């Protein structure tokens, strides 16, 4: 149903400085970046740029769930944006969720107290693409993945990019984000898991997000599992090529 292949569009919004739409694993997020712009006096930092993240749900007004996501994203993005280059300014990232996967078997409540982790990788990717589109200097790019650990009579299996139904039956859920230098930038885990399981999940996520450079050519044998790092690179290459192409 929902395609697992990521899709992206860059710089398609009129008035934002940078923008991107990114779809992956059933989620579609539109992101816009404005910056560096004037910052409100009380938020101003004398030596750094303020990074402001706004997450808006597709339906309903944002609540604690969105605030939580915003704070996670804010601290993650602060690490990769060269905030020291823009003192006393604001870099504003607006992320609008437009499609989130629906569970056919449940009638969704509007203000669902559901878990907020599965959407996090898509939000991170969209923010990254929008930042790149706005030409904000970054120290590194970032790739993220979500994994679910499902207990299968004793043996636990790890599912990358789980569906809404798989998340429901999973024992634990993990989100990892790595920089392009293969450093772990963000980890959020919830549920019940052993240290061993976490190690396994970490290894899987690392394989997913940071493929060894040598295996670049044979990477396609990984099947539908998208390699997001290469995806980001190729998206930008295509965009740059088309921008430089003289009509």
């Amino acid at each position, binding site marked *: 149903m929902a395609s697992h292949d990521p899709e992206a569009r860059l710089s398609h*919004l*009129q008035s934002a400085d940078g923008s991107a739409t990114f779809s992956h694993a059933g989620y579609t997020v539109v992101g816009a970046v404005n910056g560096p*712009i004037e910052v409100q006096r009380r938020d101003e930092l004398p030596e750094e740029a303020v990074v402001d993240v*706004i997450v808006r749900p*597709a339906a309903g007004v944002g609540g604690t769930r969105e605030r939580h996501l915003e704070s996670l994203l804010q601290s993650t993005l602060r690490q990769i944006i060269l905030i020291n280059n823009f003192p006393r300014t604001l870099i504003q990232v607006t992320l*609008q969720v437009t*499609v989130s996967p629906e569970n056919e078997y449940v*009638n969704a409540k*509007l203000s669902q107290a559901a878990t907020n982790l599965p959407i996090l990788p898509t939000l991170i990717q969209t923010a990254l693409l929008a930042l790149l589109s706005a030409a904000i200097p970054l120290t590194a790019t970032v790739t993220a993945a979500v994994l679910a650990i499902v207990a299968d009579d004793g043996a636990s299996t790890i599912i990358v990019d789980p569906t809404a139904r798989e998340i429901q039956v999973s024992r634990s859920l993990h989100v990892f984000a790595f920089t392009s230098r293969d450093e772990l930038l963000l980890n959020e885990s919830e549920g019940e898991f052993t240290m061993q399981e976490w190690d396994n999940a970490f290894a899987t996520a690392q394989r997913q997000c940071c493929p060894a450079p040598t295996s670049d050519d044979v990477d396609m044998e990984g099947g539908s599992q998208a390699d997001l790092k290469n995806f980001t690179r190729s998206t930008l290459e295509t965009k740059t090529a088309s921008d430089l192409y003289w009509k």
Partner: protein
Amino acid sequence: MPREAEPSLNEKAFFLQALQDGHRLDGRKFEQFRQLDLQFGDQYGVADVTLGKTRVLAKVSAEVTVPYPDRPFDGIFTITTELSPMASPAFEVNRPTEQEVLLSRLLEKTVRRSNALDTESLCLIAGQKVWSIRVDLHVLSHDGNLMDASCLAVVAALRHFRKPDTSMEGETLTIYTPAEREPVPLSWLHTPLCITFSFYGDEGEMTLVDTTLLEEQLKVSSCTISLNKHGEICQVAKLGGTPVDAVSLVQCASIALQKVKELSTLLDQKLAEDSKRRNKGGLLAELSAENAR
């Protein structure tokens, strides 16, 4: 807070001179819309309207709640609009601008107060359970004429939306999930759409439809007329600005009617295309035949 960039005096002079000579900057005729595209999402109740560079997305959602005590037989129907910094850095979060207030009032009057949606049909158990239908309007890109684009998106999303099917057996109310029973459309009474006219010149003698952001910033006054294809006006709003001849306003109303007819036809056609696309293999027809029995 950053302000919206204002057109320069040169731009203004050039634009007005061009208008005097009968030209618009993008080569359109005075009464011509930009390229309009309407797309529906994979899910029910999502409409994405692109009008030139303006892009608006509306999403409808439904849930069961308790009705207002003073209206026990009516469902709840709300339209929320919030302009985010995505559309323009001049918009701030949680600080509604006047534009936002006027937009939400316009949608309220055009769609809600004109009874386009039959709220009584949303009642499940009088005084206890009703459907609450909520439309969230997201402005993704703002290049003028938000009003017309938003109104079309909201109406299209509502007409596209399907709410879960329900049944009453004695005292028990069952709400079926989409997997159990095909969701049902809302009870829709008429299709109101709005057309905004902008006036230019010292006397407001030149009239444009579907203005871009630049044109919008240079207008001397504007008038938004909402009506349906049967010629019933739901709302007219010309809030101030340079006074305009009454005769030209009456003319605007008749142009609006013609435009609304075109837009309704387009909407009907898009909805038909979409249902055909969803109905691949005639599965839906089979299901509805079963339900009819």
